């Protein structure tokens, strides 16, 4: 049967970026459908009725929601190329722990830097601490997955395209505080899957400016 893979996504979403990178790593051909988050399509509402959010991966008509779950699904469905998760149970658990850490800590704090008035400085300080914890986990490894680019790298790298936004509103310099993490991000950008997926910082900055206007923050 011919495979049909569709991805409902929004270009600036660091979560959607995860799924795109995973699909690219596996060389899976897919149909990218851009969603307007202020005017969600009936397909999105049908395929993700519970959360009504992107990204939604639709494989042969069946939807898979939640980006980390999508990465695992992609890894299990197309196992031949570029394993995204380790096969060793302990290393898998370790990777899932850190992806869970990223989901629980990075986004919530980062959002407060640009989307919550009066919380910028405090959130920025917390954000740096979180990045330092991740940097400590990375250590001297090439990737979070050691020699292999994988699950944790994919979970985090999308946020790099938003670093300019966090620096601007949080009045911080991520490069000076977490230079090893920046070096890691640049190594990831050398990969075609990442380079093709991450948007330009300036484009994200313009988008955030528009969002802030809509939220009445500027």
């Amino acid at each position, binding site marked *: 049967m011919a495979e049909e893979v569709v991805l409902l996504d929004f270009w600036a979403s660091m979560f959607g970026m995860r799924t795109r990178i995973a699909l690219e790593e596996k060389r899976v051909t897919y149909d990218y459908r851009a969603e307007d988050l202020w005017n969600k399509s009936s397909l999105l509402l049908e395929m993700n009725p*519970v959360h009504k959010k992107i990204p939604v991966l639709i*494989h042969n008509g069946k939807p*898979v929601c939640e980006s980390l779950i999508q990465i*695992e*699904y992609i890894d299990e469905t197309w196992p031949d190329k570029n394993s995204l998760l380790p096969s060793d*149970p302990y290393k898998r658990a370790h990777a*899932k722990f850190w992806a869970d850490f990223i989901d629980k800590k990075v986004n919530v704090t980062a959002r407060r830097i640009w989307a919550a008035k009066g919380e910028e400085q405090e959130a920025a300080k917390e954000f740096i601490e979180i990045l330092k914890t991740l940097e400590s986990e990375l250590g001297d490894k090439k990737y979070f997955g050691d020699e292999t680019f994988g699950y944790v790298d994919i979970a985090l790298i999308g946020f790099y395209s938003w670093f300019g936004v966090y620096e601007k509103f949080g009045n911080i310099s991520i490069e000076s505080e977490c230079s090893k993490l920046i070096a890691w991000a640049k190594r990831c950008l050398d990969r075609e899957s990442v380079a093709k997926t991450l948007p330009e910082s300036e484009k994200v900055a313009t988008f955030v400016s528009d969002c802030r206007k809509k939220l009445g923050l500027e």
Partner: protein
Amino acid sequence: MNQEEQVKLMGLWGSPFSKRVEMVLKLKGIPYEYIEEDVYGNKSPMLLKYNPIHKKVPVLIHNGRSIAESLVIVEYIEDTWKTSHKILPQDPYERAMARFWAKYVDDKVMLAVRKACWGPESEREKEVKEAYEGLKCLEKELGDKLFFGGDTIGFVDIAADFIGYWIGIFQEASGVTIMTAEEFPTLQRWSEDFVGNNFIKEVLPP
């Protein structure tokens, strides 16, 4: 079995997260040493060593290495002890669905119920509504199945242990009603079957 191979679980007797791991260890017949942690009082040096990031339970220690976060631990157990009671399906799509619903229980339902029961009075109505809707969504997902996992207890059932046992206690203690047998006959039936399972019963608090 040498010392290192032995499974140790650091837990808290009243925690649904801790119990998730114990339930799976029991279902799979894996012997383990249980270590009760005084999480709200004095966190032990062992906990701080094995879970320095979150300093929380449950923490599983196996072959000298630690794993934290209850659902991550459950998947580790599933990946490591392949022979007995399967918690996750084999098919990648079914696995993705199980992970989705387990995450839904964690991120939406449990949080909403806790906020509804223990949160500020001013937010109560909103949180009760959210908890109610979350539970309705789960009731619909369960449908005619015996368990969320089908004929046997699976990943989502384990994740939803809170609903099986703790929700009744929370409602009684807080005076907030969210889930009644009349409004949620399917979840009520599931609850009784879940809690009635011999392995589950063995680990539930008295």
